[in-house]
């Protein structure tokens, strides 16, 4: 127990001391990324994919709203479908034993 504690303390000490010992290591994240405007290239796209990319180009706000709707709705639908499949396996999906060990 004491040995393990010493090992953990050593690891923590090393992590805290490393930026002081090797200062350049601490600035390892690199420079800031350049500000870029991303536009979807709709040339060569057709059908629903073209409409999708056009909507993104026209308004990020509308696209964000659509994301806010699609993600939870799709999550609920997939969760519901998975529920049906899991029920067919035959295991009890409503009770569990709450024990730590």
């Amino acid at each position, binding site marked *: *127990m004491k040995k*393990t*504690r010493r090992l*953990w303390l050593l*690891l*923590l000490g090393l*992590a*805290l001391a*490393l*930026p002081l010992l*090797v200062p*350049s*290591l*601490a*600035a*390892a*994240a*690199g420079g800031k*990324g350049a500000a*870029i405007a*991303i536009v*979807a290239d709709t040339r060569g*796209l057709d059908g629903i*994919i*073209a409409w*999708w*990319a056009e909507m*993104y180009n026209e308004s*990020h*706000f509308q*696209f*964000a709203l*659509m*994301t*806010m709707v*699609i*993600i*939870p709705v*799709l*999550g*609920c639908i*997939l*969760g519901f*479908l*998975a*529920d049906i*499949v*899991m029920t067919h*396996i*035959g*295991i*009890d*999906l*409503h*009770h*569990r034993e*709450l*024990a*730590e*060990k």
Partner: protein
Amino acid sequence: MEWLYMHMPISGVELFWPGLIILGLGVGIIGGFFGLGGAWMVTPGLNILGFPMAFAIGTDVAQMAGKSLISTMRHGKFGNVDYILGITMLIGTIIGVEIGAQMVMWLERIGSVDKVVRWLYVVLLIVIAWIVFHDVALRKKKEREAQAQNREMDASESGLEWGKRLQAIRVPPMVTFKQAGVHCSMWLPICVSLFTGWLAGILGIGGGLIRMPALVYLVGCPTHLAVGTDLFEVAISGLYGAASYTYKGRTELLAAIIMLCGAAVGAQIGVVATKYVKGYGIRIVFGLAVIGCLISVLLKLLQTELPAIGNILGILATVDVLGFVSLISIYIAWQMISGARAELAAKRAAGK
């Protein structure tokens, strides 16, 4: 084999779509089992599939919200989600994240943000891993003592008792979170979530990696309840994050939807596996996942320090993340399958 590749309309890349489903499956399993969003696993995975980094984070956050919602639904049916506790903690999380974000801006102005963030992350991961394994060692010690005294230990007893001590601080208003079985001052979950939210805000991460152990060790939640309640929070904060990244034009929604199909299956496996694994089983594997994350962060830090072997270190970091994700996913899936088989066999035997 062209049909295995799909054109992503916004980023313009051709992606191997089964890779997205496999990645979603893996992160769904791990997220459902530990109550994590799993950004540290998904972002390098998306990058390997050929996703530009600008889109990797936003796409990950979008699928994380949906995946956590699916996991929350399943955990909720098991009774593993304390919604009142989740909503209470959300107050502290929102304020904490905002304070953390403001602090990052202040650090940026004085020019030391990278230094603080990177090392805070490393120290935090070491502390979390230490807490988990120290707790496991303490619990074993208590078991040995109980055996020596010829008495049985309570199944709900933990090694570390910080949660119980913090619950004993009686600052009004006192509240009872029935589902979690926690009676404490309302300020306890608010302060804990303020602290974890502040850390998440500074580190720029979802926070599940910090919140799950905080719920167990500081609030005193049973492990299963901590996993479920944390996922509820990840779902809500993930949805906000998805909207924010999409508004900035950094989400490939189509990829997120494909990943979500794999994650829906993975989440079921991960959540159902918690039915067959006791709290300490979850804690130990969680500790191992934290160590995997720690190694990858250290390798990435060393990558820029040692440019001569930077490529090798970068590959090692990726191998580390994908190796841990694969091994842990296989372990969890195995637990679920063997547990379900045993349960079905017991049912058949009882029916005869």
